């Protein structure tokens, strides 16, 4: 046995040779500067630059969706002019939150899909329902390889029958649809506000476009107030079924904020007249 105080209890070097540090994490040598080839292959374990919430609501003639223009690197504002809502063909839009490099990879996949669809120069066959199914499969297959694309995605647009599609897909390949959808922080901050307006499909059928836009804008304001990794510049996408149009308005600013001393703001402290 080795009686050196730093190696006490280990087999003596003289008899057994150099101690094998690989046994049960027994290394006392800092390996950080050695090649990490002895570590297993690393997959994405955490997102790097990230985009925050995407939110969406259905109204009587379509869908309104929004996502801000920021990419954060931890608490650093790394990108301030990032379009996270992208059109795919003329029937769908996709709003993506989470890791930005994975987002750009998805952007590439979707562009390839769009080009392949355009080989048929006469019809656009790629519809929002195909897109949501495709993305669900991509996300699920990557999670099954234990190498996920670290994103949450909202797909909106028209299906083969020109009906509305609104779907959420996440990094596990879990997909769901609902008249109100949000990713990330939006799930906690925006969804309650959105569901206040639209609880069921019937409510959505009663909501006007103007109300829907206002609701989304209010939510973006609340998100900017309360989500530290959000930004006051965002893209707003309006889908209209009757005209079959999809419009993306870029660089919308959050409006009507109050940053006064809280005492003067209604809702804090003593009720105001």
């Amino acid at each position, binding site marked *: 046995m080795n009686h050196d105080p730093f190696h006490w209890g280990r087999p003596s070097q003289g008899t057994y040779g150099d101690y094998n540090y690989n046994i049960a994490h027994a290394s006392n040598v800092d390996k950080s500067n050695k090649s990490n080839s002895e570590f297993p292959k690393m997959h994405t374990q955490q997102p790097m630059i990230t985009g925050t919430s995407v939110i969406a609501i259905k109204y009587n003639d379509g869908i309104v969706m929004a996502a801000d223009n920021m990419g954060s690197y931890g608490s650093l504002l790394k990108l301030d002019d990032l379009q996270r809502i992208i059109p795919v063909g003329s029937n769908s839009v996709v709003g993506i939150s989470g890791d930005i490099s994975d987002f750009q990879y998805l952007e590439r996949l979707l*562009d*390839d899909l769009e*080009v392949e669809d*355009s080989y048929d120069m006469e019809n656009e066959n790629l519809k929002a329902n195909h897109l949501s199914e495709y993305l669900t499969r991509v996300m699920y297959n990557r999670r099954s390889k234990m190498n996920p694309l670290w994103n949450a995605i909202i797909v909106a647009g028209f299906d083969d029958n020109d009906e509305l599609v609104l779907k959420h897909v996440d990094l596990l390949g879990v997909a769901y649809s609902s008249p109100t959808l949000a990713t990330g922080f939006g799930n906690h901050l925006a969804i309650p506000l959105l569901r206040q307006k639209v609880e069921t499909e019937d409510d959505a059928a009663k909501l006007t476009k103007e109300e829907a836009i206002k609701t989304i804008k209010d939510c973006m304001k609340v998100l900017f107030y309360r989500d530290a990794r959000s930004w006051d510049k965002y893209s707003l996408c309006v889908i209209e079924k009757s005209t079959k149009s999809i419009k993306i308005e870029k660089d919308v600013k959050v409006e009507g904020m109050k940053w006064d001393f809280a005492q003067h703001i209604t809702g804090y402290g003593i009720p105001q007249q």
Partner: protein
Amino acid sequence: MTSIGTGYDLSNSVFSPDGRNFQVEYASKAVENAGTSIGIKCKDGIVLATEKIIASKLLAPGKNKKIQTIDRHVGVVYSGLIPDGRHFVNRGRDEAQSFKSLYKEPMGLEGLISRLGYFVQAYTCYNSVRPFGINAIVGGIDDSGSHLYMVEPSGVYWGYMGAATGKGRQAAKAELEKLDLPNISCKDAVKEAARIIHLVHEDNKDKDYELEISWISKEETNGIHKFVPNDLLEEAKKYAEEEAEGRNDSDSASGSDSDSDEDME
């Protein structure tokens, strides 16, 4: 072809004693009897057109498109063996896709055609394969402007202002030379293309054909390869027929041909 039957024409990758590769020359024969295809370089883009011979009355009109897209901004039309053409186009698509995946921007025409030239040439080097039985006209717009190329079975490719291949290529080339290339507008070129295809088909009248025209224009299609809209196609067809009649009228007026009424559609 004096050396035919000497055994030097049985395989790729074997030269004849006088330095020719017969398989490649035979491949060109496959092209020479196929439906005519033309490409026109215009001041704002490219127009591609083809005379699609209808092999059977049962084929659905308007389906079975022959002009294909390699990338948003690149179109192809070819004369010769259709399956060979499909294989060629698929390779073009792969090249364009991998280029864009690597460099984000769409592939330039010069780069694309050089890769395709290599690809076609490779099929002349191995005795396990045969050369492509097509002449492919590749046209498109990139950031250095519009380009029109034609690749031959040998793998050689040239840049053109007006390209023609297939059965009616001689007459078509003569007509293309009369046009003011490349200062013609795409819109006019569509009509001229219809006229030329209509004209060269007259030598092949026993077979029905369908006219197919596509274009890539900065002004008309925002740099994207598309079939020309139906109304324009109809207008072009009408123009082609009127021109043909006019020609026949003037022919008969000069009394050169007595059976000119036969040429009327």
